[in-house]
């Protein structure tokens, strides 16, 4: 009885049977129409950009690297250099060892990186290149060269979200050492795919807790930098390599992402290998999820929550109250990486917005379960893993939504339905300032709340014939 209910609520008008959950099995295969995901090497390259003077290097053909660069650049508006082994036909047939070794040498010469983040593309994976062996070969006589961290990222096995987390895990697993002494210092933070502005805010928070933090990865400067006086091969910023090595000596790790908490992760790997206890939290969006972060920090550091954050929290609650009528009862379409969707859903449920559709291109199998932990009534939410934007479009058309929240890729659908889109996450290809969007902490929730409320107000204002100058 309850189940049937769920469906009718989610799809206000007719029942909707789209979405790929129902597509299991060969007969039910459907091609992807306007993907709501990117490929794994993009995620890996993005993660590598957050480590000090690290050059991402894709082992495979050149086209992938060029496309990925352009995609990242359009969002961050920063130079994003990604090297590639630039497979020729010969390499594709006889294997990519020669290309890889030559490529690594060239990239060292030209960039003098502190680390090379090597991600394999579908091509090198498919031909079965034995990259670990190639690297062993490469190391001979180059023992003091920069570390080369290899992550296997064929995109037919996962999306950019998996590529990101896998790269972080590979970095930690190859560099972090278990401590010889029992003395433990500082905290590791695995923030996931959040914005440079988010990371800057997190840094402030740790500073105010007077606690040393190692953020893995830290894209706050490398992907939201400043003007240059000359060409800089490797922009400043990113987690220093020394700190990555030292992450095994931390007092604890915190990782963000409820889906990630159910998967292999860098934090858990460090817990196993170096006994650094790992605390899995949801992406701290909204009051409750942020409270969990501050509480955890308070417990771990022994410090009380600094006054300014209590003040931020109080201001946020005041804003919730001031704006509640504008947002209450609204229906939202959420899409993007699973953990972002969950974080946003948690936040929305605090202000009375129902995320009638929560969609992601990823397929962890965990989305629904994790969403039900942060939303009061999962039966009101249609959850779609492995969704593409055509699925989202079809479902949205029948769910009577009021607002879209997610990347710029949803713009065309929102526009067709004459609905506002509040931009969040990645990519933002149609606005300035994507990297400066803040989502996390009380401050992030404040910014999101204002933007969402204003988008709904603006919609009412412009739909009205009267031309109200007050709302």
């Amino acid at each position, binding site marked *: 009885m309850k189940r049937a209910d769920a469906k009718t609520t989610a799809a206000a008008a007719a029942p909707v049977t789209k979405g790929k959950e129902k597509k299991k099995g060969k007969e039910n295969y459907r091609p992807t*129409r*306007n993907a709501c995901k990117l490929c794994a090497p993009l995620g890996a390259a993005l993660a590598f950009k957050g480590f000090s003077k690290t050059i991402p290097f894709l082992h495979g*053909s050149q*086209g992938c690297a*060029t496309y990925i660069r*352009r995609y990242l650049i359009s969002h961050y508006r920063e130079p994003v250099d990604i*090297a590639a082994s630039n497979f020729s036909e010969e390499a594709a047939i006889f294997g990519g060892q020669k290309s890889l070794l030559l490529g690594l040498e*060239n990239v060292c010469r030209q960039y003098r990186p502190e680390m090379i983040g090597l991600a394999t593309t579908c091509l090198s994976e498919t031909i079965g290149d034995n990259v670990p062996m190639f690297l062993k070969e490469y190391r001979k006589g180059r023992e003091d060269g920069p570390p080369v961290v290899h992550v296997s990222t064929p995109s037919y096995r996962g999306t950019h979200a998996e590529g990101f987390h896998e790269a972080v895990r590979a970095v930690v697993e190859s560099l972090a050492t278990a401590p010889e002494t029992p003395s433990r210092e500082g905290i590791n933070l695995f923030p996931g795919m959040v914005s440079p502005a988010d990371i800057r805010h997190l840094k402030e928070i740790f500073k105010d807790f007077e606690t040393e933090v190692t953020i893995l990865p830290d894209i706050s400067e490398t992907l939201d930098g400043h003007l240059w006086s000359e*060409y800089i091969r490797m922009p400043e910023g990113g987690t220093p390599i020394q700190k990555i090595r030292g992450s095994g000596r931390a007092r604890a790790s915190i990782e963000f992402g409820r889906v990630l908490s159910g998967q292999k992760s860098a934090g858990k790997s460090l817990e196993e290998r170096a006994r650094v206890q790992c605390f899995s939290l949801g992406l701290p969006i909204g009051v409750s999820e942020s409270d969990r972060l501050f509480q955890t920090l308070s417990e771990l550091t022994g410090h009380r929550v600094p006054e300014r954050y209590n003040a931020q929290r109080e201001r946020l609650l005041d804003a919730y109250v001031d704006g509640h009528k504008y947002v209450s009862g609204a229906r939202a379409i959420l899409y993007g990486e699973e953990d972002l969707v969950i974080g946003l859903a948690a936040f929305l449920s605090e202000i009375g917005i129902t995320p009638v559709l929560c969609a992601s291109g990823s397929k962890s199998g965990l989305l629904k379960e994790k969403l039900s932990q942060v939303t009061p009534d999962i039966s009101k939410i249609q959850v779609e893993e492995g969704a593409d934007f055509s699925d989202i479009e079809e479902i949205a058309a029948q769910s009577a939504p009021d607002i879209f929240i997610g990347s710029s890729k949803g713009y065309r659908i929102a526009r067709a339905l004459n609905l506002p889109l509040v931009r969040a996450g990645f990519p933002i290809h149609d606005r300035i300032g994507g990297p400066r969007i803040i989502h996390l902490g009380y401050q992030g929730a404040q910014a999101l709340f204002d933007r969402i409320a204003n988008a709904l107000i603006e919609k009412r204002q412009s739909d009205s014939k009267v031309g109200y100058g007050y709302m």
Partner: protein
Amino acid sequence: MSQIEVLKDRKSQIHLKGSEPFEMTCDRHSLSGSVSQRACVFCGSRVVLYPIADALHLVHGPIGCAAYTWDIRGALSSGPELHRMSFSTDLQETDVIYGGEKRLYAALTQLIDQYQPKAAFIYATCIVGIIGDDVAAVCSRVSREKGIPVLPVHSEGFKGTKKDGYRAACDAMFKLVGREDTADVSPFSINILGEFNIGGEAWIIRKYYEKMGVQVVSVMTGDGRVGEIGRSHGAALNVVQCSGAMTSLAEMMQKEYGIPFIRVSYFGLEDTAKALYDVARRFPDNPEILTRTMDLVKNEIRAIEPDLKEYRKDLEGKRAAIYVGGAFKAFSLIRALKTLGMEVVLAGSQTGTDEDYRILEQMCDEGTVILDDANPVELSKYVIEKDADLFIGGVKERPIAYKLGVGFCDHNHERKIPLAGFIGMYNFAKEVHSTVTSPVWKFAHRRRRV
């Protein structure tokens, strides 16, 4: 300023006019480990075929190649917009192991049923070339079953350069030519090739020809339709726009249907006027065409000249760097920049040929740097050395220009503003002016007064 090292193997792809005898290596595979600005074979095919708006474009491979090319180009359509959808077979691990033909077949039949396209292009990407799917066989089977042309595009990324992708696209398109009736095609008719209707450019050009009294049978591929391409063999002349992307189609059509072709550019006043005159002179039997062309050119130029003069006042003597896809486009840009009184200090392309670079060399002033398949390090080095005020390139070059405090103009497929034709020259001047004269550059490091 630190000297930035240029990779040794790259030296032969850089030339400094006046410093050494001209000899460049181009058209070669990008060096392993370099951060190339180049794309792949697939990208070339996708650029050419993308604007065909009533065809289904299905990318056969893992998701990336399709995802990164979803709706990123400003190629407009006046009718159907199927081209703006991104379809992918989204291959999974089992497909990579057991082959992707079944998926391809299922995807094709479903999509054709759902979207009713007039034709379908199936792009084979890298992985498909490795797992050995018989794409052509699946295509012909579906074509038989569904009664529309289903054309494989052999665009495996690693099998060459972007240019090979152009050729693969032309090969596929050629199969559409000759399928339709040409009874109502005038003897004074042309096809426009290599014009992709970025920001509505094809519409601008088409209108010029129509005003001249020349029938445009098809534009390939801007605002393109399968049916129009099908009767393009009825045209008297193929007019091929720069870039060389579609020269191979023109050659095939010449061989098969005896249609001659000319190469033109619609960029800048001189080139646009020359293009229109060149076409008009091809129809001596109808002298009115030439008369009308002269009027058109005169009126169009008169309409924008005062504005251009105003812009020129501010732009005179400013220095520009050009780095674009095809060398042919660089030629036009150099002329257009000269119209604005600007000096070209760097010129390069991703895919120029030896001959292209020779022409480029002749066009440029002493001291101009000429580059083939450059990387960010080199581009920056020369932009700083030459103290450029403007950089013309694609999205990948934009942040480099901005970081170094140099104005930027997008001259690639992602732009939304039409730069072709006379009005395009006005738009170009306006855009160049808006970036070069912006007061923000005084905050750039190289302009800061310490």
